């Protein structure tokens, strides 16, 4: 096994011991059951929903996209919980506990150590997010006979968003204690979500100021923009009043979208990781 593999395994075993996986798996199982229940009842009652005669809404598409948007939000949230708990104490937390010092004096070095922890957390979180996303899509497809316009890209964007959060958490762990870092990353995550919702409200109200603030937030916190873009993609082909209603949100935003934000998200990830590496290299332990 290479030194990278040894560090990845080390981080993985730490997460297993701290029961991070057990908690996340339990929460995921509960969520998926509730999601199935919601799908089951919503689609069963679909025939009884009668929109006004002059409003031409595709109720199945609206319900399917709305529920899938809800599932994407839950997947992102659970993915971020997993990612943050895997990484919040990688530097300061482990240094305070005396776990880090014996490792960083080895020839493998700080950079490899940090990148290995990143790779391990990113691999686990990506597999988790894609699995939950696929299961949610399967539930909606089986119970409601509705599938998103784009099936793969939204899952990848969700996973990308979680990977960015991992990089931010690692960066925070260099300077902040575990508790402070966890709080900071969750506040950033919350701020991103609020900014996304504000964007939806701003567009509904046609408020340029709110739209502008939301756009800035999307570029400053691109994990939110990737999530919003994923929401946009699941109902990409919907037009007319159905598409308009979905765009109103809360699960249908994406006013900053496309390849521009994806490329920026990749660049942002590289910058966050580079800053974490530089900060870690300069940190006295």
């Amino acid at each position: 096994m290479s030194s990278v593999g040894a560090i990845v395994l080390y981080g993985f075993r730490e997460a297993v011991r701290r029961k991070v996986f057990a908690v996340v798996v339990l929460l995921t199982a509960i969520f998926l059951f509730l999601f199935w229940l919601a799908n089951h009842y919503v689609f069963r009652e679909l025939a009884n929903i009668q929109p006004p005669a002059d409003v031409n809404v595709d109720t199945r598409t609206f319900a399917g996209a709305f529920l899938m948007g809800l599932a994407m939000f839950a997947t992102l949230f659970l993915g971020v919980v997993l990612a943050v708990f895997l990484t919040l104490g990688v530097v300061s937390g482990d240094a305070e506990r005396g776990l880090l010092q014996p490792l960083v004096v080895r020839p493998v070095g700080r950079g490899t150590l940090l990148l290995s922890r990143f790779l391990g957390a990113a691999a686990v979180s990506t597999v988790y997010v894609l699995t939950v996303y696929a299961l949610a899509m399967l539930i909606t497809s089986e119970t409601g006979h509705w599938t998103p316009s784009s099936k793969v890209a939204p899952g990848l964007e969700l996973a990308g968003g979680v990977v960015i959060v991992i990089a931010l958490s690692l960066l925070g762990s260099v300077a902040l204690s575990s508790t402070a870092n966890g709080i900071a990353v969750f506040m950033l995550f919350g701020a991103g979500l609020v900014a996304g919702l504000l964007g939806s409200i701003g567009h509904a109200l046609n408020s340029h100021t709110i739209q502008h603030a939301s756009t800035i937030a999307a570029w400053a916190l691109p994990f939110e923009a990737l999530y919003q873009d994923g929401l946009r993609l699941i109902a990409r082909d919907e037009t007319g009043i159905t598409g308009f209603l979905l765009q109103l949100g809360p699960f249908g935003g994406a006013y900053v979208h496309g390849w521009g934000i994806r490329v920026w998200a990749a660049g942002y990830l590289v910058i966050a990781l580079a800053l974490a590496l530089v900060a870690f290299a300069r940190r006295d332990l």
Partner: protein
Amino acid sequence: MTNALRVEGLEKRYGSVQALKGVDLEVGEGELVGLLGPNGAGKSTLVKIAVGLVRASGGRAEVAGARAGSRAARAELGYLAELFRFPGWYSADEVLALHQHLAGSDGGSEERRRLLELVALADAAGRRVDGMSKGMQQRLGIAQALVGKPRLLLLDEPTSALDPVGRRTVRLLLERLREEGVSVLLNSHLLSEIELVCDRVAILLGGELVAAGSPTELSRPRGVEVETDEGVRTVEGATREDAPRLVAEAVASGRQVYGVRVLTSTLEDVYLEAVGGETD
């Protein structure tokens, strides 16, 4: 041949606190050097700079000719931190295997078995760290520091959690390492331990090196004690060279001489004199 450790004008500042004020120190090949000083003297900071955990504010530190903290330097050293912990869910054997991977050691299970034997943990290879006493963890820490046959071993308070038997095990281990040519910088509060095993001693106080040399070089003559039929008489200021004369004088004056002992200061005396009785 280059020194295992060479420190020149080493400085470290933490905000307004100057932890090291231009320290010079060398640890030669196969030499065992003891680092002494009260808490806050800068001992741990010096060791941390040498292993690359802390960056120096000034001066130079080299391990086997390579800049301290560089990959080449880290490849030559083994380190036991004062405050360390291994993952509780790892067994002793797994801890060593992890460090073999990180150190690039190809010693395999044979090296792990040998190291556990060295620190008297051969029977605990499969025991989880969680289930070990503090002393056992400390000995495992020493075994971990020896992974990959380091040229320089830096031990920060390696016997602080050990009982007398454990301390003796470590002392014998250090003597064996010296025979094998491993250089050791031993940071410890236990003066008797340092006096017993170290070739040289360096005493730090307030970030400065206030004394250095072999225990013999550092010791001062404290007189000669002559035991006669009149009792024990201590001649202050006399040295080893004065002993024959003092015995001859006693015999000449009709005294029965039962013994003569040259008195020198202990390392404890030297230490207390150097630090001016300062404690933490």
